C-alpha cells in the first residue's frame, strides 16, 4: 500500500509544479552524473604524479576547458581555472535547461555562486588585486553573467561596484560596506543567502518545494554544526557564535542551538547524541579534538549520501538535480585538493584525509 502511495505521488503530474520539465532535466542530469569521475578514480589519482593527473584531467570531461584555457595559463593554475570554468558552464546549463518552478529553485540555490563572485570582487578590490587576478577567480555559475561580473571588477572603487549592483537583492546588505568591515558584510551576505532560501520555501505548497526545503534545511543544519564545532573547539564566546548561526535548520532549530551555545565542548558533543547526524559522526567526535578536518569531511559525506538516497526515492523531482550539484561541486573540490596537495608536496595521508569520497 505504501509503495502504491509512493508511486501515485511520484507519477502524478500535479506535483511536478507548474510548467516544469522534470522528465527532461532529471534524465539529462542523470546522464551528466554518469560522466562524473567514479569513486575508484581517486585512489588511482593519488598514486599518480602531477603530470599524469594533468594528462588524465586533460583527457576527461574537462578536456574542452583545458584546451581553451591552455593558451593563457599553465601548470596547476590551468587546471584550477579549467575546473572552475567547467563548474560554471555546467551549472549555467542547469539553469538554462530547466523551466518553471524548477528553474526558480535551481537559480535560487545557485545564487551561492553570485555571492561568491561578489565577495571575490570586493575582496580583490580590498587588497588591490589587478583586474585580471579578480577575473580569474570569478565563478559565474549563478544568475549573474561573466561579462557583468568582469565589468564589476573593472570598476575603480568599491562604491561604484555597489552602485552597479543597486538593482539586485544584494544591494541593501552591500550598502553597509564602508571599505573596512568586509568580513561582517561577507557574513551578512551568506546569512542573506540562507534566509532568502528559507523564505523561498517558507510555506512549501508543491511537493517539490517541500523536498527542496528539506534539502536546504539539512544543509543549514550541517553548516551550523560545523560552525559550532569550529568555534567551540577554538573556545569562542557564546555571543560570537550566536552571530554566525543560520536560522531555519531541520533538526537543529535556533532554540535548540541556543541551548547548545553555553555548553563547554565536551558537553556540547554529548548533547548532539539525540540528533540524527550523530550516527554519521559518532565514530569521529571526541571530547578533545585537534583537527576538525575529518569531521567536516564526514558531515559533507553524509549530506551527499542522504541526497543520493533521496534521489532514488523521488526520481522525478528536484532531489536528483541537487544531488548532482553536490556531487559535481565535490568532484571539483576533490580534484583541486589532489592537484594543489601534490603541487605543494603534501603528505599523501594529509591529502587523503581532506578528500570527500
Amino acid at each position, binding site marked *: 500500500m505504501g509503495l502504491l502511495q509512493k508511486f501515485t505521488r511520484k507519477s502524478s503530474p500535479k506535483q511536478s509544479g507548474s510548467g516544469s520539465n522534470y*522528465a*527532461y532535466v532529471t534524465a539529462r542530469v542523470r*546522464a551528466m552524473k554518469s*560522466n562524473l569521475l567514479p569513486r575508484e578514480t581517486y585512489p588511482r589519482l593519488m598514486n599518480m604524479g602531477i603530470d599524469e593527473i594533468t594528462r588524465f584531467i586533460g583527457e576527461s570531461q574537462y578536456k574542452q576547458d583545458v584546451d581553451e584555457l591552455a593558451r593563457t595559463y599553465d601548470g596547476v593554475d590551468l587546471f584550477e581555472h579549467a575546473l572552475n570554468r567547467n563548474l560554471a558552464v555546467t551549472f549555467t546549463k542547469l539553469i538554462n535547461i530547466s523551466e518553471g518552478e524548477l528553474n526558480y529553485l535551481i537559480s535560487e540555490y545557485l545564487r551561492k555562486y553570485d555571492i561568491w563572485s561578489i565577495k571575490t570582487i570586493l575582496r580583490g578590490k580590498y587588497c588591490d588585486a589587478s583586474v585580471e587576478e579578480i577575473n580569474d577567480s570569478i565563478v559565474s555559475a549563478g544568475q549573474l553573467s561573466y561579462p557583468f561580473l568582469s565589468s564589476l571588477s573593472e570598476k575603480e572603487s568599491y562604491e561604484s561596484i555597489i552602485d552597479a549592483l543597486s538593482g539586485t537583492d544584494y544591494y541593501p546588505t552591500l550598502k553597509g560596506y564602508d571599505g573596512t568591515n568586509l568580513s561582517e558584510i561577507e557574513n551578512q551576505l551568506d546569512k542573506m543567502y540562507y534566509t532568502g532560501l528559507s523564505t523561498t520555501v517558507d510555506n512549501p505548497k508543491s511537493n517539490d518545494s517541500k523536498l527542496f526545503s528539506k534539502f536546504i534545511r539539512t544543509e543549514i543544519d550541517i553548516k551550523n554544526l560545523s560552525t559550532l564545532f569550529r568555534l567551540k573547539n577554538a573556545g569562542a564566546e557564546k555571543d560570537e557564535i550566536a552571530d554566525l548561526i543560520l536560522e531555519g535548520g531541520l533538526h537543529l532549530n535556533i532554540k535548540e542551538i541556543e541551548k547548545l551555545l553555553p555548553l563547554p565542548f565536551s558537553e556540547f558533543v554529548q548533547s548532539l547524541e539525540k540528533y540524527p547526524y550523530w550516527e554519521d559522526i559518532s565514530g569521529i567526535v571526541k571530547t578533545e579534538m585537534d583537527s576538525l578536518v575529518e569531521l567536516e569531511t564526514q558531515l559533507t559525506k553524509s549530506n551527499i549520501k542522504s541526497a543520493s538516497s533521496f534521489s532514488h526515492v523521488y526520481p522525478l523531482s528536484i532531489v536528483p538535480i541537487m544531488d548532482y550539484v553536490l556531487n559535481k561541486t565535490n568532484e571539483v573540490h576533490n580534484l583541486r585538493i589532489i592537484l594543489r596537495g601534490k603541487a605543494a608536496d603534501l603528505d599523501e595521508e594529509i591529502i587523503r584525509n581532506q578528500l570527500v569520497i
Partner: protein
Amino acid sequence: MVDAAAAVVYMDPAGLKAIGAGLAVGLTGLASGIAERDIGSAAIGAMAENESLFGKGLILTVIPETIVIFGLVVALLIS
C-alpha cells in the same frame, strides 16, 4: 419521448460501430501521446548528454505506443 424512441429505432448500428471504433483509436491515441510526452523528453535529455543512449531512448519512447495499437485492434474488431 416518442421522438426519442423513434430515433433509437432508426439509429444505424453501423454508425454506432464507427463511433465506437473512432473512440477506441482516438482516445488511446491521446493516451499514448500523454504517456510518451515525458518519456520522450527524458530520452532527448539523456541523449543530449550521451548519444549512445539513442537506441534505448527510442525503444522506451515507443513502448506506450502499444496502447494505441490495442485501440486499433479493438477498432478493427468492432468494425
